[in-house]
């Protein structure tokens, strides 16, 4: 029966692209997210159902991404980047204003945020550029790379969306670092950045400054942003070493915690599962990140390894910034906890990233040279 064999071949070929470890770790995080969401939403099954739907859509998209070869990504690097920049310019010119920020672009019935696309387009473009210039890297190349990062970052800052701009730039800077940015330049830039802090401070919006100040002294603004930090800290601290138990967090359920299904879901987790839960979560994140770094290490081409390294490090940044802000050691910027927070677009973005990692791993050299 040749048909059966054929199907078996295709099934194998389809499944062979997926990385079991990445699937297992991300699956564990997503399931954990659903469990916490059920508690955080006040046992609202509709919310859990919505999130399941988000996961299903993101999984479907990941199935497509897994089958895009790194070679193909290299080919679309420039068009994708140019498209992304053009769309960001289009947003600045005639984007939709929602909630006071100009972030959305509408084409017919579909509307989306081009800054989400940039989260991939930028590292793909940079990885392509450094692969092209491989072995002949000069100071000039890093200037070009800096420009490649600065253009979209400036456009996103203007929207204004400081959080996304920082994360997009971070993905570029990680890539620059991995590509071999010389230590002299790194130290030089560090000094420069330190020196330009007062300038940057003067350019921030009042509310952005307020957020930084509130972090230093939450009691200053007890009804606003400081309130979030105070309440989140109480929630985590009162969780103790083993937590109050699932569905038994008092802070979260008595309406003390704001945004407790999205950006602050970690506070609910910390309250109900305690230090033990937090450390376990950290371990799962470490495993996932470790696997990503391993994929970067084994990747076939400079393009692949730079891209894998950048995606993994950016994923780490999301997790760290979110947990850091909820724990009160970083300022409150709107960053979700990857794979755990409620929300469709962040789930989609992260699953696409994981899909790219899996594709890179599927195309690794079978014999290590």
């Amino acid at each position: 029966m040749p048909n059966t064999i054929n199907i078996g071949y295709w099934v194998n070929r389809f499944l062979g692209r997926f990385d079991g470890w990445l699937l297992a770790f991300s699956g564990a995080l997503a399931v954990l997210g659903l469990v916490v969401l059920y508690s955080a939403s006040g046992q609202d099954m509709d919310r859990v159902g919505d999130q399941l739907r988000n996961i299903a859509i993101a999984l479907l998209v990941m199935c497509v991404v897994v089958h895009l070869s790194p070679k193909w990504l290299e080919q679309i690097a420039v068009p994708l980047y140019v498209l992304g920049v053009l769309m960001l310019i289009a947003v600045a010119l005639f984007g939709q204003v929602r909630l006071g920020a100009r972030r959305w672009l509408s084409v017919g019935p579909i509307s989306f945020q081009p800054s989400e696309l940039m989260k991939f387009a930028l590292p793909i473009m940079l990885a392509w550029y450094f692969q092209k210039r491989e072995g002949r890297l000069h100071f000039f190349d890093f200037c070009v790379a800096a420009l490649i990062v600065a253009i979209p970052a400036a456009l996103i800052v203007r929207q204004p969306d400081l959080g996304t701009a920082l994360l997009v730039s971070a993905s570029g800077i990680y890539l620059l670092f991995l590509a071999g940015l010389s230590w002299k330049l790194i130290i030089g830039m560090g000094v420069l950045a330190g020196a330009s802090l007062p300038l940057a401070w003067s350019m921030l919006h009042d509310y952005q400054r307020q957020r930084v100040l509130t972090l230093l002294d939450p009691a200053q603004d007890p009804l606003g942003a400081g309130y979030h930090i105070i309440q989140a800290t109480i929630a985590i601290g009162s969780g103790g070493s083993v937590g109050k138990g699932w569905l038994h967090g008092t802070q979260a359920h008595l309406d003390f915690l704001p945004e407790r299904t999205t950006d602050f879901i970690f506070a609910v987790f910390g309250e109900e599962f305690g230090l033990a839960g937090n450390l376990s979560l950290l371990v799962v994140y470490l495993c996932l990140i470790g696997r990503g770094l391993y994929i970067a290490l084994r990747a076939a081409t400079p393009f692949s390894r730079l891209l894998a390294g950048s995606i993994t490090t950016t994923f780490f940044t999301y997790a760290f910034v979110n947990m850091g802000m909820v724990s009160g050691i970083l300022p409150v910027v709107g960053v979700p906890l990857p794979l755990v927070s409620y929300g469709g677009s962040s789930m989609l973005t992260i699953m696409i990233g994981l899909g790219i990692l899996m594709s890179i791993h599927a195309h690794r050299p079978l014999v290590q040279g």
Partner: protein
Amino acid sequence: MSVALRDRLQETREFRLRLGLIAAFIVIAFAVLAARWAYLQVSQHAHYQTLAENNRISIVPIVPNRGLILDRNGIVLADNYSAYTLEVTPGKLRNLDATIAALSEVVEITPRDRKRFSKLLEDSHSFDSLPIRLRLNDEEVARFAVNRYRFPGVEINARLFRRYPLGQRAAHVLGYIGRINDKDLQDLETREESSNYRGSDHIGKVGIEKSYEKQLHGVTGFEEVETDAGGRALRSLKRNEATSGSDVVLTIDIKLQEVAENVFAERRGALVAIDPRNGEVLALVSVPTYDPNLFIDGIDQANWDALNNSPDTPLTNRALRGAYPPGSTIKPFMALAGLTTGKRGPSSAIHDPGFFSLPGGSHRYRDWKAGGHGVVDLKKSVVISCDTYYYGLARDLEIDALAEFMAQFGFGRPTGIDIENEAGGVLPSREWKRKRFKQVWYPGETVIAGIGQGYWQATPLQLAHATATIANDGLLIRPHLVRAIRASASGAEQQTIKPLATQLNVRADHIAFVKDAMHAVTLPGGTAARAADKAEYAFAGKTGTAQVIGIKQSEKYDEKKVAERHRDHALFIAYAPAQNPTIALAVIVENGGHGGSTAAPVARAIFDYYLLGKVPGAAQAEEEPEDAEHD
């Protein structure tokens, strides 16, 4: 070859080193997190445990009192009163319907209360406390207090309520407040003001209440209270008082507003009266109107349907958003355009055969008077409202120059009045038509623009504003509705609006000519002579009639209704006294027929009250009691 290979190996080694550095950084960062948690959850656990479980510090917002809204003479148009409400928190109840049924045996709950409540329920969160009954009397409070143990999740609260003591008077100016919904919350969050609204249930939704929300709302205070596990306050730790909202003093003269609203009687329309000397809006009428008190705690379905589905659209602010063809009221401005551009002089005259044709065209643009007006010069063209004169003038000016001139007077864009949701109308030009319809401009469209028809649309506010600018000899002053903001605590007034003023580029003798012609409109022989009959002061004006174009197919079967709804709109612009004017206005009576017979008398009544203190209703009732039935 080998060099390249060595380079590649070197590079791979460098990449591995850097990946290793990143891995180390990640481990360190996570270790910092772990250390922070160890601090919070182990060493400080007891502290946070206490805060969370035994004694909670809760921050109780202190809601500020909302500022008052006063008319220019200090008459209160919006204030607050204190009353008891019965409030339900649906999220704390097992069975909402059963609870409400049981409650209704203790305190009367009418079907209207229930309907209002279910509408509130739809757009609120389950842990909001929602009023099911407002304004409980002492006996009802006492009765509930006795039965309170039976109703966990139900409370009596003393709250301040907004009230509009004059009901629907000036409702379109005041607007109303309503309960904060999801959209309001998002807006507040964007503006980083949501913390100032903790504890607040209401926010300005429309009108002055919305446009001056920031000043009216005030600053929320807070109290840090130590509470026990049940949420009962044990002691106050710290108290920051709220700062009450400021009072807003309007430019509106509410007595004048009352006269104006009454003059319209049952008719639909709008009126805007402005003090030309400073841009203060004295009256802003849009009829029919509505009672803003209905909206404060959620309007019930029946009232909402009645207002929202009425063919008279009482919720539409016609004065700010009604777009009407300005019709012949545009002629004084056209005459000024002719003089300013030199296309016409004071003595330029035509012979009017009763129609106008473009050279080589066969279409006849008809004058309103069949057979024409004979010899017509510029002044007479305004006084008798000669259409033929302006068809020719518009053709000579050409549309773009015409539009450029009219734009100076504020046509085609919002006036910038200090109240939300103002429409800009349409001032047609080649550019506009290309953008709007992607079509070229036809010469015939210029011709009808000359008499304010075709695409041209203006709001009553724009017309009043332009009229005030003529009255003020070409000094354009931005109209405004608020005179002063008064901090309620100190009583110190602070002037809010420095009216923006621009002198237009028109000659004084040209303006004087047009003003003289507008004065002659109200003298014997003019189109508004009857309305000015026996006036004790001189005034100037211009009548207009706007065609209601197009008949909707769905309405065709009802002949009587079609006839009424598609009658022409009557317009009148005017200012008084003719020398040194103190009031300028625009009136539109929808489907009122001719401006001279329907709209001009409205203006006369306003002037009589404003300049002489005459209240029209009383006098008319004595003189012509049979007239009321006729109308």
